[in-house]
């Protein structure tokens, strides 16, 4: 059940059978509905406030709060064209794609392969090596900054995207190997043995059996990793050193330091950063929630 709809499911309660029982129950529940309404409001208002603001003209933003929007009812897309054009947010959006796509596909491929080795290829010290991978999960990225920068900067990799691709890929591996190995190992052994007896090579088994049967786990990992990279600021601060390559997180951070109170620009910029994750959230909610829950060990 939780596997297929992590956000839904039946409520824990005994359903009363009589009409009077139901009425009593409904009255008893009023405080619950009120509490949930307040919770819903607290969790929606800040985001909706910024969304409304991103479509309000600058002069309105400076004179009235977004909650007064019903009394003005003036909307504009100018804020978006301003950040996309003059503030370079369009280029930053493209940079996000350039950074995120390889930084998702590379670890997806490499981690699946290693996970296959850890689950279905025999080699010495396999389980000990796997525990080392689990231990590497906890290594904070900060530990790598000084030596890795010392390694990649002389190569000129921080002037392009190579450094950020490699760093994101490497740091995604422990979690990816861990997650996928744990999934691969649950695949039916007989299936893999049978293929082996039929003369399939490991490459063949990996490509035609393991990967196709593991699409849910691979998808959850892929979505988690994509959003992780998409939303990352810290790695980009260190490993993307040329302004024209900056992703949106850095562009917004620059906006904030230049125009701390120009909310028409900041709101529109923040929403451009949010739009892709929100689309993923609403379209792939199941994989998204699973990926994030599994990713909690990261």
């Amino acid at each position, binding site marked *: 059940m939780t596997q297929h709809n992590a956000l839904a499911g039946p409520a824990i309660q005994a359903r009363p059978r009589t009409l009077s029982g139901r009425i009593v129950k409904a009255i008893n529940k009023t405080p619950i509905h009120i509490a949930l309404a307040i919770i819903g409001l607290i969790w929606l208002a800040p985001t909706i406030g910024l969304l409304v603001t991103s479509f309000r003209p600058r002069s309105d933003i400076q004179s009235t709060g977004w909650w007064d929007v019903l009394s003005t009812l003036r909307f504009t897309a100018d804020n978006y064209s301003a950040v996309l054009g003059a503030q370079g947010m369009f280029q930053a959006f493209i940079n996000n794609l350039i950074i995120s796509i390889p930084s998702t596909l590379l670890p997806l491929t490499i981690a699946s392969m290693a996970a296959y080795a850890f689950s279905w290829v025999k080699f010495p010290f396999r389980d000990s090596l796997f525990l080392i991978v689990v231990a590497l999960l906890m290594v904070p990225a900060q530990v*790598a900054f000084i030596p890795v920068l010392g390694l990649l900067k002389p190569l000129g990799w921080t002037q392009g995207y190579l450094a950020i691709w490699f760093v994101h890929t490497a740091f995604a591996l422990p979690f990816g190997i861990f997650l996928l190995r744990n999934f691969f190992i649950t695949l039916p052994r007989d299936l893999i043995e049978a293929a082996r007896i039929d003369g399939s090579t490991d490459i063949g088994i990996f490509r035609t059996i393991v990967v196709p049967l593991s699409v849910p786990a691979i998808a959850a990992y892929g979505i988690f990793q994509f959003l992780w990279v998409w939303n*990352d600021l810290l790695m980009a601060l260190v490993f993307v050193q040329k302004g024209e390559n900056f992703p949106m997180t850095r562009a917004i951070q620059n906006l904030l330091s230049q125009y701390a109170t120009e909310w028409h620009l900041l709101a529109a910029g923040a929403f451009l950063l*949010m739009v892709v994750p929100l689309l993923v959230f609403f379209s792939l909610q199941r994989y998204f929630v699973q990926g994030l829950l599994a990713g909690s060990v990261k």
Partner: protein
Amino acid sequence: MSQSVEPAGIATEQAALTKRGGKRHNVSAERTNWPAALLFSAPAAVLLIVFLVYPTIYTIALAFNRGRQGAFTEWVGLNNFVTLFTNDPNFINLKTFPPTGAIWNNVLWIIFYTGFVLGLGLLVATLASRVRYEAVIKAIVFLPMAIAATALAVIWKFVYSPDANTGLLNAILGVVHIGPISWLGDTSFVNAALIAAGVWASVGFATVILSAALKGIPTEILEAARTDGATERQIFFRIILPMVSLPMSVLAVTLIVNVIKLFDLIYVMTNGGPGSASRVIAFTFYQDKFASGQFGQGAAVAVVMLVVLIPVMIFNIRRFRQAAVV
């Protein structure tokens, strides 16, 4: 049992290291298949060694060196650590009461962020389980998990704006003639304001995990308790709370790791300020040490982070191993 109370992603780890998975399929190939083992693991092994194992060893060594330009220039023993803990008020200052500095702020984060996320997560999960629009409430509360910390920072800077015509919070307080308060500009409010934003961003995560745990509680137990005349309060404290204590402790560990790695939110919302009031350890590493070229001390801060995370690492590995035995 733990399999039934934990959501899918976490449950897979239990399935993983079971004896069946760990041992049985070894029988299949008696001899090492070297070409396959190398082909499949070499790319990961190379990347892990170059980008994680080697840097970790390098950084640990650098923590005991002056580390000018990130190179080994002069060995200084424990000096970097001594300086950090005794002579760097931005890192930890025990001379005032309450203490200040990044370490102390991290302690505040661990206590209040973890506490409120767990408490509110359990509250929302419990309340939501009693209504039909449960999925909607959980989706609303979970939504911030999709949003970049940088965007969260903009959202909350906006809520906290000292201008009552802009900031929602000061507008609401203005109705009852309080403020406006400069939430992020006042040393006495800044940490509470940041922690509140962090809690808001993470409650959905706890809600989803605890909600799955609540659903793992057998209905018969709850119904039996109700039939025997237990009050809702008794049911909550005597049945529900003990039965979700394991997922709660796993969650608490995860949240503490979040705190140790916390950076983006602070960097974008306050840049550690006002003054140094809202610094945390990962911020100190980046801003005070790394960005200003104090690599020896930076390495020492990174080692402190690593040392704090090692117990978590052991906790996790033991958890996986225990799952293998059960």
